[in-house]
């Protein structure tokens, strides 16, 4: 609008002060972007969880295995479209610190259950055909520099083999990925049959079951039906939606959302002081100029608007730059942390919140100086000059 030049020029009347204020805003919103993205990761991929997938685990704890015999009984339960299983292998590659998820699975059934994982058709076929075959997510492949055809040794921490060794070797038959930026695939999948055959103990069990609810069926009803089947048995189950499961897992880390909010609260409180101080100094310096504007016929409310716009403008400049760099930072962070903290992502909700905060903080920082300008008595101000 036509007042923009006036607002812009006024904002920059003291270049160093405005630059430093913008830099403070920049840092605040950079932190906002980074912390929001990390907080998002701790929500455990809740947003990408499929509403139609349920997870069945042992009621006592996730680490207790479930009998394989349950699979058919789950499949036969009303409202279940398809079911497959997964188990925690818990090994590492070369160094105990290089740990990531490895799961023995039924290859075709697993990829059917997780259509968000993209894998070239021929790689999946090769995996299915090879008993000692394995496929990995592209994050893992990139991190360790693996290529299809490599022989990958994984050290087991739990599952020793019948032959006594704890080194399991796999042939890398494929690399899969997910194109949803909110999710990631830092895992390895191999053949359950091989696992079952070679492991020294625990045969006939799986870690958990994953099932897809049939069209039109109510997930809650299906979950209850499954748990009812195995109630009062030696291995009771607990079935929940994938989202609920991820969330309860994420919550075990603690109230990360609260921590992020508190830290950002401290950051923005400080920012408010800095920009509030800048704005009040800015207005104090030009009392007579504001009086002149009023004599020219600029209304009280117009003057209020001009001062508030100045405050918001400074916030927007610094804030958009901060969010921008923050977004870039998140891309890098996601790659770096992808293997041990997947799902670092700056969501659209976070960005919208950020912009709302720019405007909100701008209003709060500028409101008192703006009111002062609005209420300025022309005569007193000019008399003082």
């Amino acid at each position, binding site marked *: 609008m036509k007042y923009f030049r006036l607002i812009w020029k006024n904002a920059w009347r003291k270049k160093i002060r405005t630059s430093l204020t913008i830099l403070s805003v920049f840092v605040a919103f950079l932190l906002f972007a980074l912390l929001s993205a990390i907080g998002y990761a701790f929500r455990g991929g809740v947003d990408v969880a499929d509403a139609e997938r349920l997870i069945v685990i042992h009621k006592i*704890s996730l*680490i207790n295995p479930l009998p394989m015999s349950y699979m058919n009984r789950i499949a036969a339960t009303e409202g279940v479209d398809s079911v497959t299983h997964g188990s925690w292998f818990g090994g590492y590659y070369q160094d105990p610190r290089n740990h990531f998820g490895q799961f023995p699975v039924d290859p075709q059934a697993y990829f059917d259950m997780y259509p968000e994982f993209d894998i070239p058709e021929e790689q999946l076929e090769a995996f299915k055909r090879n008993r000692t075959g394995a496929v990995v997510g592209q994050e893992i492949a990139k991190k360790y520099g693996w290529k299809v055809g490599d022989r990958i040794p994984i050290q087991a921490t*739990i599952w020793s083999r019948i032959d006594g060794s704890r080194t399991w070797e796999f042939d890398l038959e494929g690399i899969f990925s997910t194109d949803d930026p909110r999710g990631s695939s830092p895992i390895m999948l191999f053949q359950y049959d091989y696992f079952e055959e070679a492991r020294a103990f625990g045969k006939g069990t799986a870690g958990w079951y994953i099932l897809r609810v049939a069209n039109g069926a109510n997930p809650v009803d299906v979950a209850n039906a499954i748990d009812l089947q195995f109630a009062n048995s030696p291995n009771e189950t607990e079935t929940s939606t994938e989202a609920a499961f991820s969330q309860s897992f994420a919550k*075990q880390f*603690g109230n990360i959302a609260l921590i992020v909010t508190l830290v950002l609260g401290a950051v923005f409180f400080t920012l408010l002081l800095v920009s509030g101080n800048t704005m009040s100094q800015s207005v104090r310096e030009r009392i007579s100029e504001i009086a002149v504007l009023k004599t020219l016929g600029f209304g009280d409310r117009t003057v209020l608007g001009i001062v508030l716009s100045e405050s918001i403008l400074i916030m927007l400049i610094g804030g958009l730059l901060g969010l921008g760099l923050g977004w870039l930072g998140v891309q890098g962070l996601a790659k770096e942390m992808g293997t041990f903290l997947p799902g670092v992502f700056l969501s659209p909700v976070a960005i919208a919140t950020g912009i709302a905060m720019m405007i909100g903080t701008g209003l709060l920082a500028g409101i008192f100086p703006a009111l002062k300008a609005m209420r300025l008595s022309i005569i007193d101000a000019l008399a003082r000059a």
Partner: protein
Amino acid sequence: MRGLQQVFAVTLLNLRTLPQRVGSSVVAVIGVTAVVLVFAAVLSMAKGFERTMISAGSDDTAIIVRSGATSELTSGLSNDQVLIVADAPGVLKDGDTSIVSAELYVVVDVKKKSTNVDANVPFRGVQPGAFDVRKDVTLVDGRMFEPGKNEIIVGRAAQQEFVGLDTGSVVRFGQTEWDIVGTFAAGGSVSESELWTDIRVLQGAYRRGNSFQSVRVKLQSEESLADLKTALEDDPRIDPDVMSEKEYYSGQAEGLSRFIKIIGYPLTILMGIGAVFGALNSMYSSVSVRGKEIATLRALGFGPISILFSTMVESTLLALIGGLLGGAVAYLAFNGFQVSTLNGPSFSQVVFDFAVTPDLLIDGLQAALIIGALGGLFPAIRAARLPVAQALREL
């Protein structure tokens, strides 16, 4: 000495006029306070966690797990192997009996009070020697569990953190009910996050047969660790990792503690940069407000160094106040605050306190001083180089 007197005089004058510049001074102080507060909060989390984990381990106790296991949970030892360990050289004996405790733990779901959501709590089966191989384990409430019965004693921290673990309550894990008959303390260490029962009962309830995960032994001396290690590693019947308990717990703590620091240090640095910008802003404002005062002093013959110094002192002093304030608030607000989180290797909750330690506070003060110095330097140079004639003309 006139130079030094000049500097002191100007500095004192500057500080005396500080109350006139309350607005921007407060801003600088609060900026530093926020940085030190966040720094203290995050690092005290890491410290508290480390302290809880590591205080559990002592150098005169060794822990043996199966080789390659990343924690007790992923380890497995047979009864025979346990007996081999008990008879190995280096193990302290009480008369004829070795002081050992072969143990096994499972993870059970108990609701966390703070989130009201299930969390993984370690449920450990112990032998009578468990109290001798650990230091400072005492019953603080109720009584010890009776061998062979479904009775549990609960670690004090676990009782505070999770729902329904008071002495006298009954808990149900799966199909089995257990009576909570007592509460124990263990010097604030990680053991207090656990539930303990007789190992034979636990093995039975979770169908573990006669298998164990770990053996803790009391060493004859710190040096006996080497003998024990050699003896067990040479024995073909057992394939162990032998280490001091302290070393074991350090390893367990490493991942999470490193993670907290990887997030905490960059966060603090970014906030520190923001605080420097805030301090610069305040100091430039201070210098411009003091324009006449500085010009007058210069006209009277005070040298530029004294002006520079006084500005640096102002900036550093404000930052110092911020640092002290941040440290004080951190200490009063967080020190001893109990939280718990999931520790990867053990796949179970560890309950710990925030530990706002003196060295942490000192680090915070150092950070504050750096911010103060950086925030004051350029404004100080500008103040010293203020063109005197022009400033006086504007009087």
